[in-house]
């Protein structure tokens, strides 16, 4: 959009650096490489402001401050302050002018992270986001036409923020427990957030006809709906007139309907005219992979990261000691404290399902990434093995224990320890379970019914 000359403000609501704290030196080095790539990419596509998320502080304030030195955009946070001085660490807000409109942008952290934060950084404190936002928005109001909050408060607190701070025009959300996309209005204040992991870009288009201050904005869907309604009324009016003309004689019912349609048409036209000089906004979520071409410069950076990242991990070659063992010996090697017991254990009672499963892509899901640079990437391992994140933190495909390799029975049906006694297995595999990995971006052609058929391990016992 920027290349095409469109007037665009590009923002991020925070938590851009880490998913979780790197636990090993290798993972830390990998994270540093990835952060370098991310900051370079954000510089390249010219982000205007990024909110500080609590995960951005995972490696401490000094680390984040060092990262900000490489960024050409400001990190902002209105309520992260020095405990002693109560002064903000980052800029609380920025004001950007775009097409003659002054946009005030402030960033908020959730104060529920205070205790976790103070374990790492006892000199910092997160102030109450609602009251801080009120003070700042009030002070920005005389100087800004539009006030945008980049929030890490999560879905519920974003709603509270909208209810309790009427000086805000737009909340762009992030953080919190919920991972779903949000597009709603509380009062007149729109709150938007996208599904996580950067699969989508959100875009809020503003069109301004009345520049008299203060500028008011209406959601365009009301106008769009009126236009559609008017279109339908016009079509029906034309049809009725044609029917009357064709009949060649008076028809009382049709005449009544025509009169009704014409009066409704006038009413809608009047409502539309009243919106003629209003200002509107409209939100759309753009799927990145499908709609936006890769930037060659950024892709070069991605390739560089992948090759450097792969070098960090010295793969232990696949000579898995479990090969050549009997099933009984394999089962004996599964740790007793493991929640996951492996498909080999399930086979004891579900042999037909096990044999069907062996033929599926699920069974080979770990092998499929062995030869690619993806073999050491957490986001790939997560879906190309079983129970990732719950059973150890293996760094490469080769390190996955044999009973967690591939997408095994327990990925879809849940951990089997205790089954069939105490352990309750999910018999039916829901769409939600599949969607954990078959996301719109990773698996755009995913179809629940068809894919379920492909798995082929239907329950027979």
């Amino acid at each position, binding site marked *: 959009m920027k290349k095409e000359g469109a*007037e665009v*403000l590009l923002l991020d609501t925070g938590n851009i650096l880490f998913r979780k704290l790197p636990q090993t030196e290798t993972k830390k080095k990998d994270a540093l490489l990835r952060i370098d790539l991310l900051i370079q990419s954000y510089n390249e596509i010219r982000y205007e402001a990024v909110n500080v998320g609590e995960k951005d502080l995972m490696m401490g304030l000094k680390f984040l401050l060092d990262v900000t030195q490489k960024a050409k955009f400001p990190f902002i946070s209105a309520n992260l302050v020095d405990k002693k001085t109560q002064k903000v660490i980052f800029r609380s807000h920025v004001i950007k002018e775009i097409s003659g409109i002054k946009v005030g942008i402030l960033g908020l952290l959730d104060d529920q992270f205070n205790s976790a934060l103070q374990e790492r950084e006892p000199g910092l404190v997160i102030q109450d986001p609602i009251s801080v936002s009120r003070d700042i928005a009030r002070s920005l109001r005389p100087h800004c036409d539009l006030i945008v909050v980049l929030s890490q408060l999560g879905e519920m607190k974003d709603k509270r923020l909208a209810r309790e701070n009427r000086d805000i025009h737009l909340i762009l959300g992030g*953080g919190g427990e919920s*991972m779903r996309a949000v597009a709603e209005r509380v009062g007149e204040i729109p709150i938007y957030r996208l599904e996580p992991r950067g699969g989508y870009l959100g*875009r809020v288009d503003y069109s301004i006809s009345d520049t008299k201050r203060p500028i008011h904005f209406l959601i365009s869907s009301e106008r769009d709906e009126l236009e559609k309604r008017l279109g339908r009324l016009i*079509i029906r009016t*034309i049809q009725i007139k044609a029917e009357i003309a064709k009949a060649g004689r008076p028809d009382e019912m049709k005449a009544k309907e025509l009169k009704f349609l014409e009066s409704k048409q006038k009413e809608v036209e009047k409502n539309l005219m009243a919106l003629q000089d209003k200002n509107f906004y409209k939100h759309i979520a753009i799927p990145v992979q499908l709609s936006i071409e890769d930037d060659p410069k950024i892709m070069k950076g991605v390739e560089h990261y992948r090759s450097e990242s792969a070098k960090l991990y010295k793969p232990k070659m696949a000579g898995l000691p479990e090969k050549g063992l009997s099933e009984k010996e394999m089962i004996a090697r599964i740790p007793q404290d493991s929640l996951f017991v492996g498909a080999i254990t399930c086979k004891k009672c579900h042999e037909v399902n096990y044999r069907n499963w062996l033929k599926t892509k699920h069974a080979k899901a770990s092998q499929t990434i062995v030869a690619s640079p993806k073999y050491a990437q957490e986001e790939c391992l997560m879906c190309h093995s*079983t129970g*990732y994140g719950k059973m150890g933190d293996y760094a490469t495909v080769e390190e996955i224990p044999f009973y967690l390799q591939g997408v095994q029975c327990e990925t879809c049906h849940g951990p089997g320890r205790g089954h069939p006694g105490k352990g309750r297995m999910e018999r039916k595999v829901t769409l939600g379970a599949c969607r954990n990995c078959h996301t719109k971006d990773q698996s755009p052609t995913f179809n629940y019914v068809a894919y379920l058929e492909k798995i082929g391990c239907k329950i027979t016992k």
Partner: protein
Amino acid sequence: MIGLIVTQSYVPLARAAPKTQFSIVYTNDVMGEVEPCG
């Protein structure tokens, strides 16, 4: 068909061209957690 033409041609008449247009583009939770498989 006629209706379609009428609808299509009506919209520009009803809408005045805005004086100003711009977009706010955003991303969130780019490093967000996904539910681990299983």
